[in-house]
């Protein structure tokens, strides 16, 4: 039995519960470090998040979020430094405007905005990071798989 099959068999998904796939785009200085702290503090959380580290939320293009959905994400977390804490002073302020517009656009397009969590998690908020992760997973789990988006390609007339 290959390892892959072994994983498959023991995967929680096989227990019948839907396990959403969540992509996380986080800044290096606050949230990534906060998630490191969650690790060193052994804050337990659910394992459904896959993280992409970026220097700053200012770097996070909304195309990343769309691409994540295209690649089968059921939910997305975008997280960075609290206002005033940005390592680059202002990156998160620019990002905040961009995210505000994107959030409204998503909602308008009929993409359930609960699929995306925007959060500020500082380097000292390991516990908060765990909460953000678990809340997002539970919320997206309740919403179910994002089949609407996943099937877009096949549904094209």
């Amino acid at each position, binding site marked *: 039995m290959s390892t892959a099959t072994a994983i498959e068999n023991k995967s929680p998904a096989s227990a019948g519960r839907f396990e959403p796939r969540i992509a996380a785009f986080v800044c290096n200085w606050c949230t990534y470090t906060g998630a*490191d702290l969650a690790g060193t503090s052994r804050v337990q959380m659910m*394992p459904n998040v896959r993280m*992409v580290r*970026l220097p*700053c939320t200012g*770097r996070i*293009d909304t195309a990343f979020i769309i691409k994540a959905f295209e690649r*089968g994400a059921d939910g997305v977390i975008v997280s960075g430094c609290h206002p005033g804490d940005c390592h680059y002073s202002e*990156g998160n302020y620019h*990002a905040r405007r961009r995210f505000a517009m994107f959030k409204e656009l998503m909602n308008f397009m009929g993409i359930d905005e609960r699929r995306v969590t925007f959060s500020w998690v500082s380097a000292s908020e390991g516990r908060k990071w765990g909460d953000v992760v678990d809340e997002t997973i539970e919320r997206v789990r309740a919403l179910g798989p994002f089949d609407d988006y996943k099937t877009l390609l096949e549904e094209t007339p």
Partner: protein
Amino acid sequence: MSRIGVFVCHCGENIARTVDTAAVAQECGKLPGVIHSVDYKYMCSDPGQLMVKQAIAEHKLTGVVVAACSPHMHEKTFRRATAGAGLNPFLCEMANVREHCSWIHESRTAATEKAIDATRMIVEKVKRNAPLSPIHIPVTRRALVIGGGIAGIQAALDIADGGREVVLVEKEPSIGGHMSQLSETFPTLDCSQCILTPRMVEAFQHPRIKLYTYSEVESVDGYIGNFKVTIRKKARSVDEANCNGCGACQAVCPNKKIPSEFDAGLGKRSAIYVPFPQAVPNIPVIDRERCSYFRAKAKGSTKVVCGKCAEACGKGAVHFDQQDTLVTEDVGAIVVATGYRLYDIGKDQDSELLKGYGEYGYGTVPDVIDGMQFERLASASGPTAGKILRPSDGKEPTSVVFLQCIGSRDPSKGIEYCSKICCMYVAKHTMLYKHKVHHGQATVFYMDIRAAGKGYDEFTRRAIEEDGARYVRGRVSRLYRDGEVIKILGFDTLSGEPIEMDADMVVLATAMRPQAGMAELAQKLSVSYDKHGFINEAHPKLRPVETNTAGVFVAGACQSPRDIPDSVAMASATASKILGLLSNEQLEREPTVARVDESTCSACFHCERVCAYGAVEHKDIRDRSGNLVRVVASVNKGVCQGCGTCLATCPSKSLELDGFTDAQIHAAIMAF
């Protein structure tokens, strides 16, 4: 074709307990482009690093992925190992399978699955990593200090003593700043000028300090290590080289009734003047606004009016036709030490935030003065030769009331912060008053007594217990003149009783504010500042004397209210930072910086607008014959800090951030 090596670490049991590291290595070994995939107990150990180095050589790896702890922990370690094997260190990245995986999950299957995904995403990213080399920028090994108060003087002396040249710019005719106006200093009551004057002279005579007084910074170009500063030397109307400071010109000046800035308006000076006897340099300046010669000229009169000073000068040093001159200085680092000014309680304010004090008659009640004026009254070199006398009638006040927090800690007046020094100097004032007027009674209205500092609380206790200052916790709601006395209506919040009392003189501990024009200066330096105009430090705890612009540092009360020891400590801290910076011929910087694809840049300059560092420049594209074809954006690698905000803002995706390129991020998402 990529040749990636994957190295999965057990971290003893830290990772291996929850993550099936062998399975991770095995699965990742199957990924296209991965030609070597192993797991090991401690990748960061010497044998572990050796494994990486040997694999690079043996398998001719083009990229290294270490699935281990956080990159914040060991990225440097593995990049060093990678470089040691002759591969560009930036071709090595880490997948975080400890802090972000094994430590936070219990399910071995789920954690293993996650570790494989995380490693795969990094593998795909690394396939698109490019070799990068650190950026080297040359350094001009001199520094500029803006502001010649105690902070600026200290910074200049420390840098100069450390062996680097300093350009010290002061906008007033003399260096010395506010400290030169003070009588005695807390908590030791030593004479301010006695400790300051030697420093001023030392700065003046220092072979490595170039002093520009009566000068201001006109513009600043460039970036860390390479600033070009234009300084406006305002026309003194006196030839600095020729003047010997004899003072004959001041003696003959007919216009002697001008309120002296140095004496906070309580004393008088002439139109040609040296601000105070110990001024450095001891060279007068003509106040052109008030000099009869210049006033007549400004009115268009062709007749020569006055000119007595020029006649009196034995050295022919008075030059009425002197003009402002601009000089340029190249420096590698800059210290902002522009100090403070005091809140004016008047009706007209220079900021919309500030409201003034209508309840204190907007500053129109006689014998209501501010702390600096009291300093001048108490100073032996002051207008009353150190006697405490009321400005209105010269009588000795037998009751002086001191009000703390005037403007400070009062959002309704526009300032919510604490000015920090007032509790201490008010205590000092009550003592100086008691020492000079033995039968006098000092009363202080305070909100809290903030006397944190070495010997500070003892000092305020002394004011109360030994020198009998009466401290009333509460605010004064109204002040007005009632015949000879000033009526004070207030409230004692400890007893809960309203207070109505008379005073002969009232001293307001008005809030400390940044100097006028701070916003303009900060913009010239592209450093950030708060709504009050205080310069923002780069990090409130860990980078307290740096600004968000590399190479620009901040010292003293222009950053927030500071007392003398704080200002001096900050100044020395900036000096040590700068000496470190200037110890190199070249600066080396991480190559995580943005660059522009000039072929697709549309020159909309959105990038320029979002750049917090002013790193985006306009670049002219010319054809072979030198004709301007178009303009594009260009990133100055010396200034860019690598946040990448410009990338997400660029509509045509014409910017890239080395280390975090779109292709790298895209690949990671595609591997999700």
